[in-house]
């Protein structure tokens, strides 16, 4: 999947499920602060990512992810790995 498609899908669930204002989604913005995430929200992020992309993250996977761009990159990395594993 192309990164532009990953961003499109991700932004859609962030807006629909997490009620982020579209104009707040900026690549360099802090992802956690913009979404005002607490510990429970990461549980729901794992659920929504699994239902949209098919792979399951853990809390550790969010470490080192600060900006929206890093969030998209993290999803892209896991998705490629997941796709590769399931293709082989």
């Amino acid at each position, binding site marked *: 999947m192309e990164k532009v498609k990953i961003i499109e899908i991700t932004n859609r669930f962030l807006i629909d499920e997490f009620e982020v204002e579209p104009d707040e989604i900026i690549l360099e913005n802090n992802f956690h602060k913009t979404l005002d995430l*607490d510990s*429970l*929200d990461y549980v*729901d992020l*794992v*659920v929504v990512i699994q239902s949209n992309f098919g792979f*399951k993250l853990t809390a550790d996977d969010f470490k080192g992810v600060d900006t929206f761009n890093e969030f998209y990159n993290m999803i892209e990395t896991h998705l490629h790995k997941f796709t590769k594993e399931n293709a082989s």
Partner: protein
Amino acid sequence: MGIYSCLGSNLAEVKNSLYTGKSGIGIDPIRTEMGYSSALTGILPEPNLKKLLKRRMRIGMGQESRYAYMATAEALKVAGIDDAFLDNNIIGLLYGNDSTAQSVIEGIDKLRAVKDTALVGSGSIFKSMNSTITMNLSTIFRLKGINFTISAACASGSHSIGLGYMFIKQGLQSMVVCGGAQEVNAQAMGSFDGLGAFSLQMDDPTKASKPFDVNRDGLVPSGGGATIILESYESAVARGATILAEVIGYGFSSNGLHISQPSVEGPARSLKMALDQANVAASEIDYINAHATSTPLGDKHEAMAIGSIFGGDNCPYVSSTKSMTGHECWMAGASEIVYSLLMMQDSFIAPNINLENVAEEAKPLNLAKTTIDHKIDTFLSNSFGFGGTNSSLIVRKFK
């Protein structure tokens, strides 16, 4: 006070329904598909909280919590309690609830589908626990006092007010948010329907619930949310509140008999205890809001219990608002206090609709078949539940 029920989504709508004798009962076709014997139910809209509460606030709320939120938001507004007051005072929360069937089933269905607990989502646990309403309301309204749920079957809402009254009387709290809520969905009532306790008179849903009538054949399940703000006299005066009425008596008892069959002696003890606690004579009661759910046995026993204490020439007006609302179960004890307070405010007795032929045992009661314009200074409200739990509250107009 605040209300969200099949008679209306706020106090003004509900008051109008009560005065005009409008039924809130209809048919839920899903129940027939699911194998219910009766598709009758209270019909009320699903509250849309998306514009009222943030996602994190909403995500742990099941249907009963959404109803309770609507009622509580109205109650706080009507009582003149703003955000600053909530933040700067120790306010308690005692709320009646006795099921979260829809949320439990949805959570288990999800788990069965995904086969991984980490994929069920964060809201499920908070929706599924029986204390879901108190955990949600205390968080949303930042309540910092006593905080727990009362589960006492169909007397839950009434006991919540009784206990709130006791906490204030003991000086342990100056203000307590009390109430009751009941989910209204096809998942919640199947096992109850299976007991054969529901009315089968589906041809005209609005006429199915007929407490004290010879042709009553069972209750109609219903629900919503009802909230009462109780506070000490000193607290009310200090903040310049409009005092609607005061709780002056709380009677309770347990039948100690059958798990579902009613008794006369248990409710009679609850009634007598409420009168003793209030230190009022039976003749001082202007109106009794009966528990009467339209079941053959339940209404009969309550009529006998009321008749044993109030029967005769001076029997106060009696009506069961369940003739209009159906049985609001865990919510009923609180909603019927709200209904009675609305009657007290506008000096009328809401009718026991659909009462055409009064059952023999109810003939000693002064039943209001139609709306009666009548001043109410003091009323009594009964609530009885499975397991034989009984609660009677006496409320007097503040003068």
